[in-house]
Each structure stands twice: as structure tokens, then as C-alpha cells.
């Protein structure tokens, strides 16, 4: 998977994206992510309630996203457990 990042659409974001995951060229920053995904997902990503994890860590400020080749980005909508 050299040269690519994988983006996972968790929960309801998968329905909006029409897939559970997608691959994009690395590197990928916040602006690149917003441009790469389906507009319906882009809209959600801009809401505070949607978190972003990269390489297994939730980003405190998702706009600092800087994903390199082989990294997994997870888009995390509001959770509901229990």
C-alpha cells in the first residue's frame, strides 16, 4: 500500500460515503481529505462532532491532519454505545 492512505468511514458516515473505506494518494492533509471524500462526508467532517483519528490516535485538532503513505485515517461520527 505504499503511496496510499486508507480512509475508513465509521458508523453512519459509511452510508454517506457509499463504502466502508477508500484509498487516496499520500500524503493527505486536512484540505486534501475534504476535497477527496464525497461532498456529503465533507459536510459532516466540518462539524465539531465528527472526530478524526490518524495512525491509531484521535487528533485533538483534526485540521492538523498529516497522513503519510500506509497511514489509516478513521472518520469518527458521534458515538452511541451501551
Amino acid at each position, binding site marked *: 500500500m505504499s503511496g496510499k492512505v486508507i480512509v475508513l468511514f465509521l458508523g453512519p458516515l459509511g452510508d454517506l460515503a457509499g463504502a466502508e473505506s477508500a484509498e487516496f494518494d499520500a500524503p493527505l492533509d486536512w484540505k486534501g481529505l475534504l476535497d477527496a471524500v464525497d461532498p456529503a462526508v465533507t459536510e459532516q467532517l466540518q462539524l465539531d462532532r465528527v472526530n478524526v483519528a490518524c495512525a491509531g490516535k484521535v487528533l485533538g485538532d483534526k485540521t492538523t491532519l498529516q497522513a503519510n503513505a500506509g497511514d489509516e485515517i478513521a472518520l469518527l461520527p458521534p458515538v*452511541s454505545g451501551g
Partner: protein
Amino acid sequence: MRDVRLLDQPFNPGALIGPFTNANPGLGGVCTFVGEVRGGNGIEALELTHYEPLTLSGMNELADDAYARFDLMGLLMVHRAGLMHPGEPIVCVSAASKHRRDAINAVDFCMDHLKSAAWFWKREKRGDGWHWIEPREEDYSDRDRWSD
């Protein structure tokens, strides 16, 4: 005794609580909450998805927070993922302590955070298909009771 588990198969809370209680000799009280898939409203099934790299580590951090906040002897925290049917357990939290208040509050604290701050997404299957379950306002306000 601390036991934090994420399971993808059905479990029997009763079979876990007895051994958990026995593993904390000298306790003064045990409080247990079991959450099950609610029946009625045409609910046929419930599916919980999660994000592997974060879910169990997040549950362990929550257990750390509970230990830091309450005087606990033991904590059992078990959460299901995958497909479930009405009547099946989703979650079990049990806390053992010297005095009741720590056990009761620790369970309440863990459940409030599992509902709206753990990495799970829930959807229900009804007659007309699957529906994602959004967290309710009460879920957030319940959790906010614990913020200092």
C-alpha cells in the same frame, strides 16, 4: 480485580459476576448494571460496530479514570460488538468496593461514558430496514454530570 473485555459473541453476565465477586475478597459491596437490547417498537436486531484501534484501549482508559476517581477494589467492564437480538446483553459493568457509594457511582460513571464517549456506533433493524441510533441529549447531559 480488573477485567475489561470487548466481545463479538453473546455472553452471560451472570457467569461473570460470581467469579468477579469472589475475586475481590473483603469487599463491602458490589454494584452491577447489565444493559440489554430492548424489545418492542418493531426492533428485530441491533448491530454495534466499533473501531478496533481505539475501542478497547478507550475502555481501558475509562477503567483507569474510574479507578482514579473512586475507591475501587475491582472493576468488570464487558461490552459487546456485532449483531444482537432483543433480550441479549450488550454491556455489563460491575464494581466492587469497601463502601457502597464508590461501587454505585463507578458503575454510573462508566455507563455514562460507554453510552456517549466510547468508540461504538449502534444501528437498529426494524421492519423497514436499518436505522443508525444517534446519541440523545440526555446521554450527553448524563456524562457531563461527571465533568469537574
